[in-house]
């Protein structure tokens, strides 16, 4: 059997593929964070909790109302995005003129509260959520067994990332958004309702987190802590990609997923640390991140 650095090639290919799948989650979550940071200048620490809410709403739709995965994929981001809109209108909007630190403290506190409420209500060991029947099963690729659902996750995440990027870079709405980031009063002078745009942007960022949550529900245990572990990595991804850079966070998300996957073969003990080592190196060499503008 062929080997690369003492690792059988099939195993290596398998890990690259798995890394890509995890990268899809990193990309989707960091995309939402980047959108929110780029346009609102808020570091949204509630993102992990909103990811978790997305998964939980999917579970609730199924168990209380009998609504399956496909509808949940639309309804859950809408519902969770709506809570984001309410959050922005009632609390976050008070903080735009203050230091970043206040936004961070508020969203961090909120995430603790949200997770606490879910834990009180549903416990900590989680809820079962099955893979939808249409996506059950697996392909035998020869070098590994590839669950259909994981393939779906990669394709769908790519689709979501590219659409978001297109909306922001190529449409009139996106142009308004980018302009408002640069100079909000001027854009408002042209008759654009900037506060409403910002509210909806936050809602959309939150909806992206919830969408990732629905995608994650059949793979991971749907439990109140599911966002906590992921969000720290995702922050590192955003920092490495460059704060606010959408393309940067998507590419970095996929790339770091692959690097993490390879670490799991060569030295599994370090697989949770490797991303932060890269973050340190990137911050030293390019403080604005790989794709950020200094």
């Amino acid at each position, binding site marked *: 059997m062929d080997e690369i650095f003492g690792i059988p090639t099939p195993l290596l290919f398998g890990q690259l593929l798995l890394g890509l799948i995890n990268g899809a989650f990193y990309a989707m979550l960091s995309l939402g964070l980047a959108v929110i940071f780029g346009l609102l200048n808020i570091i949204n620490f509630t993102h992990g909790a909103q990811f978790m809410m997305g998964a939980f709403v999917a579970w609730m739709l199924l168990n209380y109302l009998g609504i399956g995965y496909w509808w949940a994929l639309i309804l859950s981001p809408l519902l969770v995005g709506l809570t984001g809109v309410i959050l922005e209108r009632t609390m976050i909007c008070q903080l735009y003129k203050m230091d970043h630190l206040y936004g961070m403290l508020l969203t961090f506190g909120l995430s603790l509260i949200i997770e606490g409420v879910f834990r009180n209500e549903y416990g900590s060991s989680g809820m079962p959520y099955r893979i939808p029947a249409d996506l059950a099963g697996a392909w035998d690729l020869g070098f590994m067994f590839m669950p259909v659902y994981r393939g779906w996750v990669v394709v769908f995440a790519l689709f979501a990332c590219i659409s978001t990027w297109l909306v922001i870079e190529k449409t009139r709405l996106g142009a308004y958004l980018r302009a408002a980031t640069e100079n909000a009063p001027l854009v408002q002078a042209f008759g654009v309702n900037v506060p409403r745009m910002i509210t909806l942007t936050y809602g959309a960022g939150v909806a992206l987190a919830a969408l990732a949550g629905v995608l994650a529900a059949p793979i991971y245990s749907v439990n109140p802590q599911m966002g906590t572990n992921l969000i720290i990595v995702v922050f590192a991804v955003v920092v490495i990609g460059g704060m606010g850079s959408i393309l940067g966070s998507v590419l970095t998300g996929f790339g770091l997923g692959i690097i993490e996957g390879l670490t799991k073969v060569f030295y599994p003990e370090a*697989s949770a640390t490797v991303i932060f080592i890269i973050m340190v190196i990137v911050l030293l060499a390019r403080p604005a991140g790989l794709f950020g503008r200094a």
Partner: protein
Amino acid sequence: MTTTRRNVMAGAAAGGAALGGLPWRSARAQAANTIRIGVLNDMSGPYRDISGPYGLECTRQAVQEFGNRGFNVEIINADHQNRPDVGVNIARQWYDQGVDMIIDVPTSSVGLAVANIAREKNKVCVNTGSATSDLTGPACTPNTVHWMYDTYMLAKSTGGAMVRAGGDSWFFITADYAFGHALERDTANFVRNAGGRVVGQVRYPFPATSDFSSFLVQPQASRAKVIGMANAGADTINTVKQAAEFGITRRGVKLAALLMFLPDVHALGLQTAQGLILTESFYWDLNDRTRAISERLRPRLRDVRPNMASIANYSGALHYLKAIADMGVAASKASGAEVVARMKAIPCDDDAFGAGSIRADGRKLCPSYLFEVKAPSESRGPYDYYKLLQTTPANEAFRPMNEGNCPLVRA
């Protein structure tokens, strides 16, 4: 409804913790006639559902059933967040302020630390939550009793059974901390002694891992017949879930859940968990007595059924109170070691675990049961999950006393 009750419980927990920080105000005479029990466990983290509020309620049930036998019993509760520093601080403060016994204490690192404090203050610790077999081995003390399960008993029951069933080559997926290492070590010993081989292992960072697919794909190259999961709680749940997704079990590889509780199976759902082999020392539907105590606990736990960890609090607290009644409150307050000696001297008997005894090294003896998780078609409803495969009698379930290196036994 649920929210209200849990909120009340959380309030009680917070109140209890706050109470722990205040000087005792009750009259001296009343204090002298009151036994204080501190339930120290994980109320908010990954091990919450295994004991947490349920362990607290089981302790309350024990006090209620024990009734008034000439002394009062108070229960307080705090969350140690699975951190040894937090656990040690609370334990020290509680013992200094008149708590006589601390019960539960999951997470092996915290359990070992609190056992040391109990010895230093000459109080009592009834550990029902930690898994490490070192509590009755090199780290045993005259002040601690280890109730129910430990890594040796789990390894012997589940590991031994899997090897006998033909699973003679093992690959371990291990949580990279003290508990995971101990469970892997104890299980690997059984596998080798039974003629099996350990073909590899992977140690993943705890608790920062939620994707186990990479670790599940790696054993395929080694052609292992069994994947031993030396982890617990949400990690085990995720490993099992993802093993099903990647078709690991469909290709004949067996999963060995080395530590798994009823709430974990509930969280997985039978569709995914069916066929898993696991070991517990309690199951609510085991016999008439276990069904009776589970039914009595129902109003307290709502519709959740107890598992071996939460109900061990009931059993441990009840036996402790019997020892107090036997020797008198004044004598019990003078020396925790004497209380533990009395607990070892009198026989245990309760509805949860039946008749039993406590060895000189502090190990409570009870049978261990090997279960297989039912298929969805076999289950009659929520929590009807286990089929009994095999019973290991109490005197064979645990590590022989002379092999544990407990200083109390050599002396």
